[in-house]
Structure formats: structure tokens, C-alpha cells
């Protein structure tokens, strides 16, 4: 679907057809879910918030003027909702460890050398824990770069800051993660 198709669907929704919104939901639902999950780091909360993002977007459709792409507009709604939700929750470990990841961690604590797959699984788990240690702005800039693949300029536009600020935040976020994950990175990097 192109940007024009997005606009056509928005136009259809504004005429009162709820089902026209389906195309937009199905196109962007997973991206919005990832964005929200990356901020709140809680699967169930991320699912609830993803629904809220689209509900709020539908209710605010009239305010979408088409100056930016529909996804950029949707992203801002998602970002703000996720940020609010994150701030409301108390600071506690948010990482949901599924059974396979927990077993990997337990295995790593034993004296037996964990195998390559186990080490990798542990690294991923620790990356999530490391993300929790970042500030929300640092986390956002990492997610926009690594998950969305946005350029520095695009990130600066979304976060309403300069390219230099984006580079600085990304640099500090990566250094923080690198420091946090030193024991887990291959070759102790």
C-alpha cells in the first residue's frame, strides 16, 4: 500500500466506514506493536496499548492533515501512549522471560560451559535487561534506528531534535549497552 492508498483509506473512514480502517490496522499493527513493546517491554501491556493506539487514531482521524505520512502520525500517537503507560508503572523489571530463556540463564550459572545457542539466548535476554536500563529517549532512538531502520535525519524529525542530538543519544545508548553486556558479548567486547 502506498501513501496515496493510506490517504484513500483515511478518506473512506472519515465518510463513516469503519471497515476502511482495517487496511490501515493490518498494515501497521506489527510495527506499532514493536514500537510499543520496545518502550514498555511487557507483552500484554504492549498488546493492550497497540489496540489503544488504533482506537485513538480512529477517533482523531479528522486531525490527520496529511502533512506527514500516516505512519509518522500513528507512530507519534503510539509513542506518547507508550511513554505515558511506562511512566505510570513503577520501576521494576519488566522483562518477561519465557521458559526457554529462563532455562538458559539457569544453565549459564552452572559450572558447565554453556553451548553457543544458550549463550546467544542469554545475550538476547540481557539485551532486553540492558534496554530497561536506558532512558526512554535513549531507548527510543535505539529502537528507531535498529528496528525501524530510520536514518539519523528521520529520527531527528520524529523526535524533534537535531541530528547531532540523535547521534549523541545513540552513541551513549550503545556504549551503555556495550558496557552492560560486556560479559555476554562474544570476545568480551
Amino acid at each position, binding site marked *: 500500500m502506498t501513501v496515496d492508498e493510506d490517504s484513500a483509506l483515511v478518506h473512506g473512514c472519515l465518510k463513516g466506514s469503519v471497515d476502511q480502517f482495517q487496511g490501515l490496522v493490518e498494515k501497521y499493527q506489527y510495527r506499532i506493536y514493536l514500537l510499543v513493546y520496545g518502550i514498555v517491554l511487557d507483552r500484554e501491556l504492549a498488546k493492550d496499548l497497540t489496540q489503544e493506539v488504533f482506537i485513538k487514531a480512529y*477517533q482523531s482521524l479528522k486531525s490527520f492533515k496529511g502533512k506527514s505520512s500516516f505512519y509518522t502520525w500513528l507512530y507519534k500517537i503510539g509513542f506518547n501512549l507508550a511513554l505515558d503507560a511506562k511512566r505510570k508503572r513503577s520501576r521494576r523489571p519488566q522483562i518477561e522471560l519465557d521458559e526457554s530463556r529462563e532455562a538458559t540463564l539457569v544453565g549459564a550459572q552452572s559450572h558447565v560451559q554453556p553451548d553457543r545457542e544458550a549463550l546467544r539466548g542469554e545475550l538476547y535476554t540481557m539485551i532486553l535487561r540492558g534496554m530497561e536500563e536506558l532512558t526512554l529517549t535513549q531507548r527510543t532512538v535505539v529502537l528507531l534506528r535498529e528496528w525501524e531502520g530510520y536514518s539519523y535525519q528521520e529520527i531527528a524529525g520524529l523526535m524533534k531534535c537535531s541530528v547531532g542530538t540523535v547521534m549523541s543519544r545513540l552513541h551513549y545508548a550503545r556504549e551503555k549497552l556495550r558496557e552492560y553486556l560486556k560479559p555476554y558479548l562474544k570476545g568480551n567486547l
Partner: protein
Amino acid sequence: MKQSPKRKLCRKVGSQLQAYYDGQLPPEKAIRVGEHIKWCESCSRKLEAYSQLSQGLRKIASDELNHLKPFSFWPAIRARLVNQTVSFKPRLGRMRLWFRPRPVWIGLTVSVVVLLIIFFSTLVIPSKLPANYCRIESISAPEHQLMIYQEKTDGFTIIWLLE
């Protein structure tokens, strides 16, 4: 203590390493950084760390999506939207906010109406409103047509002269 040229270069390249990794450096600078990391162990290890972090983050994203798919948010969203009455009719917006009924507006309106009634009640058309009472000292010439109303009040005879 003076820094060696190599160390200086390493510091300079180090600040560009991230942009190099993200493919955001101009080509000529990217070539210089590429040459540097061929022999600088410290910078190449940093780059390797960035790579592992990226891979880890991508794997996490992939895991999350695999966990989620083929779940669709649409049925739940649709059910909520259909239950809500979302209207896209034109609204007056801010003006509507200003003119919604408020006690102060109602009070002001009533006051203005009362004042207008009092004001216009003083602008009596002589033929319709009674004059203040007076003693008639003289009556003008018969060519004037007068209508005389009499009313007794408080023991006084009040004559209204209307013309």
C-alpha cells in the same frame, strides 16, 4: 603527555564509528574509517560489539513478531469502534466550546434583557404611557385635541394629558 598521532586518529575515528556502522557517513569519510579499522583493534572490536547488539535487537524483534503472528488486532479494534459512536460531523470547534450554556452567560443575558426592558419602558410614547401627575393650570386652546384620563390614587386626582 602528548598523544601519539595514531591515538589522536583513533579518537577522531572513534567518534565517527557509529555513523560509519549506520551507513550515515559521507563516502570519503567512510573510506578513511574503513582503512583505520583494518589495523586498529580497539575500533574494530567496538564495531563488532555494535554488530552483535544489532543482531541481538533484530532477533528480539523477530521473536516478538513470531510470538504475535498470525494474531490480528483488527477484530478487537473493530468491535470497539462499532460499539462507540464516532462521529466525523463538522464541529464548531472552539466556538462551540465558548457558546455552550454556562451560568455566567445565562445570568448576563437575563440582566441585559431586564435592563433593556427598563430602558425602553422609560421611553414612553406619550399617547400610551401615563405622565407624572400634575396640576393643570391651564388647558390649551380648543384646537388641540386632548384625551384626558383620570385615575384616583391616594386621594389625589391625577389627570393624564395625552395628545
